[in-house]
């Protein structure tokens, strides 16, 4: 699988390189190799590496056992990742302060803080501190909430 991904990246690089190389060149620019051939030449060693990796991986997969994955850990990671994605969306919709509060609330619950009171108080505290430090003190400008536009 890894080798296939490397092969795909090499193919993409070479394809993009050929596409650019086939475009008409500006005769006033002294550029022997051009943007296309540089990309193509980067793709060639990657192609070689992907083939080598597939060979090496195939030999290892017949001799090594893969470790078992922890399902609970995987679910936790997926939830944290999803929460992070939701946080980025929420910044644009409800603004930085509200989005931060919701983010901390969800994350603290996901990582195992069982008490709702503790989670809510901590989330409010973190959100306010981050708002004061980054928005007020550092003058960072976040998108305006949708309902205020």
């Amino acid at each position, binding site marked *: 699988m890894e080798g296939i991904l490397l092969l795909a990246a090499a193919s993409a690089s070479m394809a993009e390189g050929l596409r650019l190389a086939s475009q008409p060149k500006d005769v006033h620019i002294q550029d022997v190799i051009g943007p296309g051939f540089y990309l193509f030449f980067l793709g060639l060693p990657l192609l070689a590496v992907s083939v080598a*990796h597939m060979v090496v991986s195939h030999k290892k997969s017949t001799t090594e056992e893969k470790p078992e994955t922890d399902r609970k850990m995987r679910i936790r990671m997926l939830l944290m990742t999803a929460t992070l994605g939701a946080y980025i969306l929420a910044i644009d919709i409800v603004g930085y302060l509200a989005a931060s509060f919701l983010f901390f609330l969800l994350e*603290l619950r996901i990582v195992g803080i069982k008490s709702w009171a503790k989670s809510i108080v901590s989330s409010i505290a973190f959100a306010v501190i981050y708002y004061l430090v980054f928005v007020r003190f550092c003058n960072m400008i976040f998108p305006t909430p949708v309902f205020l536009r």
Partner: protein
Amino acid sequence: MDLVNGIANLFSFSNLLYCFLGCVLGTLVGVLPGIGPAATLSILLPVTTYMDPTGSIIMLAGIFYGAQYGGSTTSILVNIPGEVSSVVTCFDGFAMTRQGRAGQALWMAAVGSFIAGTLGTIAFSFIGPGIAIHALKFGPPEYFGLIFFSLTLIVSLSGASITKGLGAGLIGLILATIGLDPLTASPRFTFSSVKLMRGFELIPVAIGLFGIGEILASADLGRSRIYEGQLGRMMPRGKELAKGLLASLRGTVVGFVGGLLPGLVPAIVTFFAYDVEKKCSKYPERFGTGVIEGVAGPEAANNATAQANFIPLFTLGIPSSPATALLLAALVLHGLEPGPMLFQANKEFVWTVIASMFIGNVMLLILNLPLVGLWARISLIPYKYLGPTILAICVVGAYSSRSILFDVWVALGFGIVGLIMRKNNWPMAPLILGFLLGDMLERAFRTSLSMGGPLVFLTRPIPVVFFVLSIVVTVISLIYLRRVPKQVIEDDADE
């Protein structure tokens, strides 16, 4: 005279405060396993855009070399290396702790680090400007040779699998081409997207790979082991002290020479230093049972390498590791062009930073000796409190790059990439190194070819020297990679 002016500039309240802050953060980062200087620098990099350039580089540099001090604390006390470059310190450091001699191990690690840091900074003061003068003779072919030499670092950073390292490095080089071509402005991999025409910024990519990826991967790690040991007497005495100090001096030389070469990462240098100590000892079989030279030598080498890494960074603009790559990014962010002109056009800045390293090493000695118990306890904070806090900082950090949410999505995307890479033992350092050096490599390569075709690299002496050095360093790295434990190499590839 320049150094005296540098010291005078350093003694302003803000610069001293930034130096102290960098040392404290660096020690903290070094003590906390799993959070390296690269992740911290990537998170703090955007914050420094609100600071003055000198202060921000002083602070970031302090984090970088401060982490080398802090890494030994948990290695010695609880056998958990705070930094990958402190793994070797576990061998004899923890053995000394079990013998009730933790205090002596910590004292020797801190003092050895101080000796190496100070001597390394002195050497930097003398060697740096000299290298800068010669670097003025560099043209595009010479820069190509130098960057190509730096890319040999990829072999050292590849971990146990060279194909994975090379693959990651090449993908990093390809990622650097996304956007408008630097010479002809042709769009590459933009898919008609205006946002992609500017390419990916380094900060979101670095924050994603090292910050978000690390936290997601460490989500369920709660280190709750409590340190209950006694520190014992702090300072070694008599022959023990003499052996430790001599080992520190040897480690300084080994580390400094290793740090000058972009192809050798600190972990490999520390193993080499340990090897040197064994060879110099009358009783090499005792190493691993609590020999003070086994702590002093590698710790000194570790710190000397950190100081020496600044030489290629400041004089030639070439990073030696992911952390120095981020320092390079910081210099560029603040409009400071690293390379030979830095010593000419920004002399005051350079000597102030060098002066800060002298003072920083003194601060670190003070921080690491009396406060060692406190650092030991901080290292036990569970990830369930640290994780969300750091993730939120990552979001802010990625956003601050260009104040667009697209960069935060890029950081999240690379965070997922970093998580997948970690789970499948792919080294991330080659990817970030390829990404950082890709643009410079392409410009130097294409400009050189337009100067005189492919033979331009073979008819000028400096590129030839760099190509030869690339081969030599690659061979040395491959030889030592066989001798270093596999897990250490894989962990180091991410630092």
